[in-house]
């Protein structure tokens, strides 16, 4: 309660839950993000897409406050994340939920205890109420029957769904997804995709997806951003993206072999390497 009073919600609610303006980020000398500007409106599901290593996961970390931008401002719910101290950061994170790439369930706790974790740590609710809430969250992802299993006993897709239930345990205002579709079979993939959409609408939350799964994203999101080599190279609604003629977007969406992202890694002349006459 103390934290809510210290860091009050922005009374004049901004239209955008997350506002990123001209953010740079570098690991030492290596620049990962250059001049990124994007907005995530409240209540929407937004995808951030790009190839591996383009900086999209870094963006997610910046939003979550795990990293600090080297320049530019990043606001969540009107609050500049870089200005927050440890206590403020933790207070902000209680309004967020994050789904990690492979679930990151606590291996020494059962499914039930995993989902109940945040409820037990951050609230004083009685155990009976916590049990009801846990069962409700698990039911929403279809895994209420696994409550007593250990994470090691779950398949990849199931672990991902339990992690999703855990991420939304406190009904967060912002849900972050780090490659939620990576490594899933088609059924689990579709299930997770639909869950992301339904939970977002049911909770009245805002969701940010970092992924490179185009097909699924186009079906569930409201807006997409494309990142390549640390810059935003395209954005739009799913319809706009499907019709886009921008080279990178086109290559990405249609899975073309060659385009702005070249097929060949830079190498010397082919004929020369094989010793063939020109």
């Amino acid at each position, binding site marked *: 309660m103390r934290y809510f009073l210290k860091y009050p919600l922005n009374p004049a609610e901004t239209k955008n839950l997350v506002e990123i303006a001209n953010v740079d980020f570098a690991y030492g000398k290596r620049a990962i993000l250059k001049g990124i500007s994007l907005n995530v409106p409240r209540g929407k599901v937004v995808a951030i897409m790009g190839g591996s290593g383009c900086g999209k996961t870094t963006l997610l970390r910046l939003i979550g406050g795990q990293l600090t931008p080297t320049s530019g401002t990043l606001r969540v719910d009107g609050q500049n994340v870089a200005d927050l101290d440890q206590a403020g950061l933790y207070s902000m*994170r209680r309004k967020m939920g994050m789904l990690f790439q492979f679930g990151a369930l*606590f291996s020494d706790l059962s499914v039930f205890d995993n989902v109940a974790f*945040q409820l037990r740590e951050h609230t004083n609710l009685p155990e009976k109420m916590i049990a009801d809430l846990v069962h409700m969250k698990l039911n929403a992802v279809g895994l209420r029957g696994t409550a007593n299993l250990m994470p090691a006993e779950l398949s990849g897709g199931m672990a991902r769904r339990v992690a999703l239930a855990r991420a939304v345990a406190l009904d967060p205002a912002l849900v972050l997804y780090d490659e939620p579709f990576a490594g899933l079979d088609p059924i689990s993939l579709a299930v997770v995709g639909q869950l992301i959409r339904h939970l977002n609408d049911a909770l009245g939350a805002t969701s940010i997806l970092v992924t490179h799964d185009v097909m699924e994203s186009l079906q569930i999101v409201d807006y997409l951003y494309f990142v390549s080599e640390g810059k935003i190279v395209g954005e739009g609604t799913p319809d706009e993206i499907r019709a886009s003629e921008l080279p990178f977007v086109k290559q990405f969406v249609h899975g073309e072999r060659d385009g702005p992202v070249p097929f060949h890694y830079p190498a010397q002349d082919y004929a020369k390497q094989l010793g063939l006459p020109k």
Partner: protein
Amino acid sequence: MISLLSKIGGRTIDSVWRIGSIMRFFMLVLANSGTSFSRFGLVRREIFFSGVMSLIIILVSGLFIGMVLGLQGFETLQKYGAEETMGVLVALSLLREMGPVVTALLFASRAGSAITAEIGLMKATEQLKAMDMMAVNPIARVVAPRLWAGIISMPLLAALFSAMGIFGGYLIAVLMVGIDSGVFWSNMEAAVSFRYDVLNGFVKSVVFGVAVSVIATFEGYDCTPTAEGVSAATTRTVVSSALTVLLLDLILTAFMLRGL
């Protein structure tokens, strides 16, 4: 030649840097120890996994070492007709040195490496990051309880080791060699001083407990988050702990010598 020198220099600077990092980490964990005491159940759980699970190896090793000390001592003491002081030999060796040092080495191998592996695995599977994102401080919740469990368990294990060792010496002396039980104990009681032997041994075991626990938790927290990284970190824990314990033992013994 120059490159060899600069390599040695680089390694030395890295080592010193690492020691500095370990110290800073230790301070960080201490600063975040509040939860360990307000929710003592967390520490209790870790005492079970570090301390209780090490009991068997500690008790058995203690017994064997006590018996070996008795056997080895017997051969030499016999030459001077001093077999009856076997208890003194066993007790002093254990209380001052063998107890704290061997217990620390065994503890580092069994419990220390397990702690490193646990924390390392949690780091590799992003569990620590997930906890951080859920606004729960992983240092307070995961690392600190393990540190305090190690610090609490070590002196207790060292005492149990020494006690078992003395019992082992008793078995050899009284049951095998045939020394009178009363003589055995009275000689020991006369020669062993609480302040110089028992207390110093206890202080040593506490210091070693801190050292091993700090190293174990640090290596886990600091490791490269891959399978090889965790494996390398576990090895480092055992090796670093062993070297540190022996070095600290040298320093402490030098300070504790009577008359110094």
